[in-house]
């Protein structure tokens, strides 16, 4: 059967995982990551394709896809902002960051801006607890945030699609302690 939406490249990437496990089903999470990376979110067509490649039923695929917050079953903005709201971050001001983001973007948590640029999500601990408040935007981390820093990041992303304020995972762009 021909695939509906996934490319041959994606299919090959998924099949490359097969030798790791005794059965195809185990590849499901990796396959869903690949599909989401390619399509942007897990559309029905993408899930049907994954089911086809792994010899599963679409329901089995949906069951797993819908269980994890990691997977988006609906289209999301170009930049998905995930704010950590867990204790260590909350102690150093995650709440204010969330409010500031909602105000600046004009959306509530769980929504996407009308121009399709930004989605806002709350998540639990992302293992940067000593450098909070922090957010993950797509695959980059931004740490030791202040409202001003957030403004600059949003402007950068709007203008250039990326920001120099990103800290590669675990790499702060600016050295120096928190005051």
């Amino acid at each position, binding site marked *: 059967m021909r695939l509906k939406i996934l490319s041959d490249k994606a299919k090959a990437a998924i099949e490359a995982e097969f030798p790791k496990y005794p059965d195809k089903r185990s590849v499901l*999470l990796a396959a869903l990551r690949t599909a989401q990376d390619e399509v942007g979110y897990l559309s029905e067509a993408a899930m049907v394709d994954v089911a086809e490649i792994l010899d599963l039923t679409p329901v089995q695929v949906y069951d*797993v896809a819908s269980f994890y917050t990691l997977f988006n079953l609906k289209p999301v903005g170009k930049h998905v902002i995930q704010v950590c709201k867990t204790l*260590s971050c909350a102690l150093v001001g995650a709440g204010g960051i969330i409010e500031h983001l909602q105000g600046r973007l004009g959306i509530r948590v769980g929504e996407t801006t009308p121009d399709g640029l930004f989605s806002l999500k709350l998540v639990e601990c992302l293992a940067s607890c000593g450098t909070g408040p922090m957010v993950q935007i797509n695959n980059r981390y931004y740490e030791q945030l202040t409202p001003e820093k957030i403004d600059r990041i949003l402007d950068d992303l709007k203008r250039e699609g990326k920001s120099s304020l990103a800290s590669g995972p*675990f790499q702060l762009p600016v050295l120096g*302690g928190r005051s």
Partner: protein
Amino acid sequence: MQSRHVLTDRDLLLEQLLTVRPIGYEEYVRRRGYTALPTAINTLGPSGVLEMIKRSGLRGRGGAGFPTGKKWEMVVQRKADRKYLCCNAAEDEPGTFKDRYLLRSNPHQLIEGAILAAYAIGAAEVYLYINGRYEEEIEFMEQALQAAKEKGHWGTCIEGSSFAVELKVCKSPGTYVAGEETALLEVVEGRPAKPRQKPPYYPAVRGLFSMPTVVNNAETLSNVAHIIREGVDWFRARGTASSPGTLVFTLTGDVNRPGLYELPLGSSLRDLIEVYGGGIRGGKQLKAVFPGGPSNTVIAAAQIDVALDFDALKGIGSGLGTGAVIVMSEEACMVQSAIQYARFFAKESCGQCPPCKLGTAHLSEILEKIESGRGDEKDLQQVEQVCGMIKGRGYCYLLTGASIAVESIFRRFREEYVAHVKQGACPLVGAV
């Protein structure tokens, strides 16, 4: 005096992690890395490795502190076609980030430890289960695995013997419950991360793909090669008799120098906070500490001379957990912190056990009511009632952990809760 650093080169403030680059293959070998493996294969044999780990007294660093040798032995004793080893580096517990650092700074010490463990328990396959958000670390790990394979440390005919083992990376989905050891097995098998019912699904009996399986934490496995190479006495020279060795502590919250500190087990909590962490931020008073992440009881400022080891903390009704120490100053609201935990557990519940999904959500509602000043005497009673009701329920420890944490905050800081009700508001708002 022996250095207190075994797994790490030095203590690090988070800001300094910028400078951390992984120890590459050559450097690891220069430090006598990959010498434990030939010793194990040519001299000790699987039972010799197991014996050494048992005598070393190494205890699991993933939270429970179960003796590692015993865990291995349970799988060794089972007859099965296949056995598996899973290294748990899912790390989704609030306040901890050390697996990430261990992966980043020294992937080979983990790889060698995992190969030795697989050898001891007779596993031909190892899954390195790593938090999927750790993109860079996973990349480093893949490179390190490749380098180790090229040099013949894993694959087939290891050290010229008939021992063969495959190591493969599996990304965790980055949710708290996915780090629970039976939920982890579900994820590797491609299913939702729902913990299995125990009994009958003990990993040692019916684990991954229904085969006997050992699940070890990344820090636990990182110790193994050192123990085999340097010996049991060397390992036992640090730490206490019942909690030997060092632990990598992650210190966060209201301290001047949050960061990562490797200390011998049995060091005092006061030293960690005052000497290493530089004391409380802004010259404030210490109010409370969560010494072991979110599933252990809170301890009050007066108790900070407690020793950081599995048994001493248990002795005062708390626990070491994974060594995620969260510090709170006098300005922290203890109703807020209980809300944080309750919400965390409510959100992270996998949903398969009703008391968990409903109980934790109910708990956050009551707490939020109290925090907002709308609570009354009945709500105060309810906090304890709900905690009592959910404790010990569910397939996994999540629910009990939630109730232990929230109940301890409530009991220890009851007057603060009463103050919220009496004043009709949070007394600490605007205190900063």
